[in-house]
Every structure is written in structure tokens, then in C-alpha cells.
């Protein structure tokens, strides 16, 4: 590859003669690269951007000053990336985050990696030192495209002022099309400052980018026969079902054909958990009934899932009796971890409709459905809550669920609190569970709640269920919630531990609590008040309902410091690489 080889500018782009503004109310003509960047965002329908100012990105911010796009200044660039990520999850449109070069860009990295692992649509714009300085180790220079190549769907170094708007438009479109993911455009300061009159036009993907939406009809036919003949079918819905807006098609498909449904963690909300066919989540901390069903099924229809190791446990024991029908828009996911006998590449909703049309009669699975119901009663998701113990975290999750509407949005950090939230909330709607799944980034919850708030409808509550360790990583973003007067409620399930590590140390490291014990935490309610948020504290069961009600009723950001039972563990549990059917119900079964 020649260095910095440039292609001729795309001459088919609407030039100023086509895209020229015609009336006084319309957009003014683009005069420089930064304005082309902002115009590309406006043309893409972007309403919000999350970011932090800095030297190399200043021209873009200057152009944003005159734009209708609302910029939310975050406390830290990691917060900007997580906020944009959550905005993307809730709205389905790419969230936009911005940062300057060097440390601004590297601070985005955790959030970009998170979006990449979870296929969340996101566009990151980073400032860069002027082109002439690139490669000379200039002040605040980092090879941002180099650093982010393995964690973006694609990234671009914008070398040409006439093409920079198109670069941004393409990156926006690529973040959304096909399998979504984060994209990044690195914007050298001389390029954004340079004169150009190129209006980037509507965002579109490059001509060479091709996505297969419909699966091979012949394989669909074979898969349909397999489903008809199966006696123990399971539908496994992953995050791709929600990303592909196919929850309704999948719900109808499951009900019409009487197929029990399991969701992966990112697929949470794709199927209502109050339906009798719902077995909820499988995997490491999935329900006992979901893990029994996924282990004993004879036909597994996986839709929009990448068969992650937290779901499969050991590959050798994963659904070992099942023939696998795998629906995914990304061919590279098919047979990557689990071999698929029926590879169906395409859009989730489209392929499910193809399958539905091809199936002539539902499988005879009455016995299997009864078996699944029996497992539901054999392995109930319960916990003991004796009055004289400290408050159980599961109780708090259930109380929050009871106090909020069906479409309330929950964000979380990562760890025990995340698992309790996932297990004990009854999920009924897609795009209401907002979490860091693949990357497992502690500190995700609060900035995600901020991003989710901007994407949510006014009547949707936004609740962040956080852990003390996770909250401590990004709590400076409370300043943003207060400044923007965002109605969010943070419940910190505080056990003064990095709880999941403590649980693993008890199970696998002879109870040696190396660096997992904080023993002391700030008083989060008072800290919240210092930020200008409303602070609450829960110590006893009697406080729970009342305090939650008051915190939710508060019109603005509120934080509840919930002092939970520090000894509480997350069960059921399949140890890493274990057999899903051998999930432990307590530590002595590990």
C-alpha cells in the first residue's frame, strides 16, 4: 500500500451546484471542512452529540456552535462514548461522540470497544493534529486510527477537505447498516480548517458495501423441515433481534409455532418474560430452566447471536443434541463458535418471515413445553430475605421494577449488581435493557443513563442500577446530569466490594479477598448532593419502597445509596467453560 495514497474526490457527490441552498431558511453554504463535518451530521438527522472540547477538535466545535445539534458536554470522554453508545441502543440510530486528539481519543477507546463488542451503532469523531505534524509525535498526537482499527467496524483518516463531509456521512451510514457497530473519523485540524464548499449530501454506505438480507431459500426449506420434525425446539434470541427491530416477528413466530424462547443478555427484552413460553436468559448466570432447555433441546434456532462463551460455557457440552439453525446478518458469525447445520445469512426479521412462510405445521412439542414448565417450577428464581439480614439486592431490583412502568429503561455497570438486575427485573420490551455485555466495562451505567435519557420518550423512566465499584469509576458524570437537569435515578447496590471478584475469590481462590475489599466507600447520597443531585440512602427493608418512590418522583437526577447484604452471591452459576446443564445453585455445587 502506498502511504497516504488518495483517491480522486468522489465526483458523483452532489457538488455545490446541486446541493446549493435555495431559500433563506435552508442551510447556509459550507465554507470549510468543519462545516462539512457538521453538515454531514445534520443531513444524517443527528440531534445530539456527546463530547469534550479540546485543541485539535476546536474547528468542529466552532461549526457546531451555529448548528441545531445539541451538544452535551461530558465530564470525561469515556462518558461521552458510553452516552453515545446507550443513545444508539435506545434509539436505534448511531449515537455521536466527539473528542480531541491524543488523550481525548484514547479516553474514548473503552466506549468504542464496548460498542464494537455489542454491535451498537456509534460514530466517533476525533480531532487530530495538523496533517503536516502527523507522524512527528506532536503535542497530543496519537495514531487514533491505528489504535482503534481492531475495535471499530471501520475508521478513516480524513485527509482531504473536499471529502471530509462524505467521510463522516459514510461512517454514520456504516455504523447503522448491516451489522451495526462503531465507526470513527479522525479529523486533522488543517483539514477541518481548510476551505471547501462541498456539501456532503445524504449519508450513504460505499457502493462496494453489500449486505445480504434474505437467506438462501433452499436452506430455509431444509431448516423449516427440521423445525417441523423437531420435538424439543428452542428459539434463542440475541442482540441482533433488537438491533434488527425483529422482536415482534420473533415473538409471533415463537407463539405461532409453540417454541420456548431463551434470550441472550443483549437480547433481553426481545421476548416478554411474562409470557409462558419465556425461559429468560441462559448461560453463566442464566436461569436454571433456560440452561436445562438449551442443554437438552434437539433443534436450536439462534437469531442474531454470536454464541459468546458466557452463553455457551464449554463448547463441547453446549446444546450437544441440537442441530443448529443460525440466523445472522454477519456471515462471519455463522459456525465461528458453534457449527451451524442450517446457516441462514440475512436480516433477522426477514429470515424469520421466510422460515414462518416455509413451515407447514408447527413441531409436535407439547411434551417439551410441559417439560420446560416443570423446570420452571423446579428451579425458581428465588432468594431468601430474612428480616434480620441486611437488605437483599434482588429485593431492591424487584422494588424498582414494581415502582416503574413497563417501558422503563435500565442501565447498569458490570458485576453482581448487573446480574441481579438482569435476573430479577421482568423484561417485556426491547431497547429497555442497556448494559455492557461483551466488553464488561465497569463504569458504563451512569453515562449510559445520560445517553439513554436523551433517546428515551418522556414517559419512560431511566434507572441506573449500579454497583459501588462501577459507580466510583464514572461518577463525575453526575455533574452532566445535574447541569442538563436529567430525570434519572441511580440505585447504587453498595456492598463495599468488587462483588463479583469477591464471589469468585470465595469460590475459586479459597476466600482470599485480594484487592476486592474496599472496606470503605464515600457516602454516595451526600456525594450526590454535593453535585447538586438529590441523595437518598437505604439501610433497611422498611425504607426500600418509600425511598424508591421518592427518588423516582424527584424531577432531576437522584442517587440512592443502597446498603445491601455484602455476603450475597449471584446464582445460578455455570463456572467459566462449564456445562450449562450442571449449573450450580450454591457455592458447594461448584
Amino acid at each position, binding site marked *: *500500500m502506498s502511504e497516504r495514497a488518495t483517491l480522486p474526490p468522489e465526483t458523483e457527490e452532489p457538488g455545490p451546484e446541486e446541493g446549493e441552498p435555495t431559500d433563506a431558511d435552508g442551510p447556509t453554504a459550507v465554507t470549510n471542512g468543519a462545516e462539512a463535518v457538521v453538515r454531514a451530521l445534520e443531513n444524517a438527522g443527528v440531534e445530539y452529540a456527546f463530547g469534550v472540547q479540546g485543541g485539535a477538535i476546536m474547528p468542529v466545535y466552532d461549526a457546531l456552535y451555529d448548528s441545531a445539534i445539541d451538544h452535551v458536554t461530558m465530564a470525561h470522554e469515556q462518558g461521552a462514548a458510553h452516552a453515545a453508545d446507550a443513545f444508539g441502543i435506545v434509539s436505534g440510530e448511531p449515537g455521536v461522540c466527539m473528542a480531541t486528539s491524543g488523550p481525548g481519543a484514547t479516553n474514548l477507546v473503552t466506549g468504542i470497544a464496548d460498542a464494537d463488542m455489542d454491535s451498537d451503532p456509534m460514530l466517533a469523531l476525533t480531532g487530530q493534529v495538523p496533517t503536516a505534524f502527523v507522524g512527528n509525535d506532536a503535542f497530543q498526537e496519537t495514531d487514533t486510527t*491505528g489504535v482503534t482499527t481492531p475495535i471499530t467496524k*471501520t475508521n478513516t483518516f480524513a485527509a482531504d477537505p473536499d471529502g471530509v463531509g462524505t467521510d463522516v456521512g459514510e461512517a454514520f451510514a456504516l455504523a447503522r447498516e448491516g451489522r451495526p457497530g462503531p465507526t470513527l473519523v479522525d479529523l486533522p485540524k488543517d483539514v477541518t480548517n481548510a476551505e471547501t464548499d462541498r456539501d456532503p449530501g445524504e449519508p450513504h454506505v460505499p457502493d*462496494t458495501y453489500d449486505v445480504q438480507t434474505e437467506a438462501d431459500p433452499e436452506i430455509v426449506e431444509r431448516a423449516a423441515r427440521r423445525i417441523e420434525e423437531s420435538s424439543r425446539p428452542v428459539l434463542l434470541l440475541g442482540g441482533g433481534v433488537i438491533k434488527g427491530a425483529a422482536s415482534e416477528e420473533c415473538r409471533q413466530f415463537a407463539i405461532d409455532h409453540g417454541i420456548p424462547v431463551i434470550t441472550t443478555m443483549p437480547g433481553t427484552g426481545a421476548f416478554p418474560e411474562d409470557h409462558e413460553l419465556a425461559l429468560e436468559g441462559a448461560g453463566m448466570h442464566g436461569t436454571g430452566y433456560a440452561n436445562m432447555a438449551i442443554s*437438552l433441546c434437539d433443534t436450536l434456532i439462534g437469531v442474531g447471536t454470536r454464541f459468546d462463551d458466557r452463553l455457551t460455557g464449554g*463448547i463441547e457440552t453446549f446444546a450437544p443434541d441440537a442441530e443448529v439453525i443460525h440466523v445472522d446478518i454477519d456471515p*462471519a458469525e455463522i459456525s465461528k463458535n458453534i457449527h451451524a447445520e442450517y446457516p441462514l445469512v440475512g436480516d433477522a426479521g426477514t429470515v424469520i418471515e421466510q422460515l414462518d412462510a416455509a413451515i407447514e405445521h408447527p413441531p409436535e412439542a407439547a411434551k417439551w413445553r410441559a417439560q420446560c414448565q416443570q423446570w420452571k417450577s423446579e428451579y425458581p428464581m428465588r432468594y*431468601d430475605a430474612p428480616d434480620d439480614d441486611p437488605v437483599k439486592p434482588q429485593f431492591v431490583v424487584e422494588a424498582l421494577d414494581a415502582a416503574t412502568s413497563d417501558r422503563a429503561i435500565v442501565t447498569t455497570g458490570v458485576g453482581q449488581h448487573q446480574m441481579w438486575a438482569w435476573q430479577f427485573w421482568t423484561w417485556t420490551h426491547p431497547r429497555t435493557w442497556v448494559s455492557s455485555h461483551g466488553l464488561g466495562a465497569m463504569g458504563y451505567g451512569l453515562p449510559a443513563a445520560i445517553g439513554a435519557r436523551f433517546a428515551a420518550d418522556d414517559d419512560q423512566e431511566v434507572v441506573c442500577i449500579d454497583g459501588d465499584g462501577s459507580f466510583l469509576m464514572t461518577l463525575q458524570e453526575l455533574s452532566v446530569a445535574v447541569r442538563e437537569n436529567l430525570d434519572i435515578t441511580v440505585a447504587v447496590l453498595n456492598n463495599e466490594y468488587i462483588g463479583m471478584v469477591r464471589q469468585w475469590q470465595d469460590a475459586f481462590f479459597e476466600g482470599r479477598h485480594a484487592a476486592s475489599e474496599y472496606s470503605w466507600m464515600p457516602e454516595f447520597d451526600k456525594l450526590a448532593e454535593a453535585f447538586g443531585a438529590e441523595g437518598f440512602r437505604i439501610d433497611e427493608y422498611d425504607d426500600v419502597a418509600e425511598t424508591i418512590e421518592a427518588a423516582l418522583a424527584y424531577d432531576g437526577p437522584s442517587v440512592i445509596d443502597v446498603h445491601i447484604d455484602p455476603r450475597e452471591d449471584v446464582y445460578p452459576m455455570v463456572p467459566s467453560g462449564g456445562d450449562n446443564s450442571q449449573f450450580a445453585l450454591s457455592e458447594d455445587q461448584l
Partner: protein
Amino acid sequence: MTGEMEGPAPESRQRPAGRRNSQGIRIDPEVEAEREPRQAVISALVEHEPGVLAEVSGLFSRRQFNIESLTVGPTEDESRARMTIVVEEPDPGIEQVKKQLRKLVPAISVRELPADAMRRELALIKVDADRPDRVAAVADMYDATAVDACPETATYEITGSRRKIEAAIEAFSRFGVRELSRTGTTALARGSEFTAAERPIETQVHSPRITSPQPTADDD
């Protein structure tokens, strides 16, 4: 610690009958064996722009694909470059290589070349020139071209299949090899067949189970 749940213990639960191998394939008599690695030549037509080579090489290291050689150069279309990548992986790994390459936005077309594809390498070999006539005789045998000579050394260029180049190196080694530089494999499909052409990316996935392993072949 608390958090215990109720229900039948692990040993009293129903167990599935089957098992998968470590490649995620259900074990039945036909496929019980783990697949052995084989060599595959993959040709990728990519956008000729900065960063693509880094993206491709990064993909190979990040996903731990076993790569033998990678060559890259311009094509008949100045906006495109062709990469020829020789990998050694079991079938599922080769399928993954192709699919992951196709996912890269600058990748236009990716294809595994058939066994009869034309494959060539080039080597420059610098040997001691103590016995010029004998060196020349070996060079003649392998169609090597002299590119440089001085009283002490002679440098030859050899092109051909990997097997031929390795044989030539072996033959030259008796004169004392001072330095050696090799290019890796470049390849094209034979006849009117396209190697990896401007057309929609092949997205159709075929089950690796029905893909028969292709023997590696040299041309000469």
C-alpha cells in the same frame, strides 16, 4: 456465603446424550475427527488506500490466524490492490479467514483460489562467487537470472513455485549463501476465470462440512 437457590442438584438432572468437538461441531461418526490444518491461497481485492494492509495484518494477528505469507501490490485498476495470502488452518479456520476478510469495509472481493491456480514466488539469493562456473551451472538449472556480480559474490533472481525456489536454495547452499530475500506467494486463477473480481461480495455461506478439503498444489 448466601445466595443459594432451590432445585435438583447437578448429579440428579437429565443429561444430554451428545457432545461437540472443540470446533463446535456435533460429534457423530462422520465428523468425529478434529479437522487437520491445510494450506489455502486467498486472494483479496481491496481498496488501494492507506491503512488497509495494517487492517488486514492486524486481523490475522488479533484472531490468531496462521499466516504463511502475504503479498500486496497494485492491479489493472489503480484504485484497487490485490493481496495474496497463504494461510494454514483447519477448514473452519479457513472459512473464518475468508468471512472476516470480507467484513472489512475496504475489501471488495475475497476468494480462496482453486488448487490449480498459478502461484509464483520470487527469491533473491546472494552466494559466494569463489567458483563462478559451478554457480552459473546451478543457476542455469533453475532458470535463475544473475542480477549482480562482484569478485566476492553473485546474486541471482529465481521465480517459480515455492517448491522450485526451495530446491534452488538447497542447490545454491553448497556455495555459501550470504543473504536471502523472498517475496511470498502471488497468484492468479487460470484461464478466463476471475481471481477475485469486482462483483458483489460473496456472502453466501456454505457449511464447512460440505466443503471438501482442497489439496495444495504447486504448478511446476
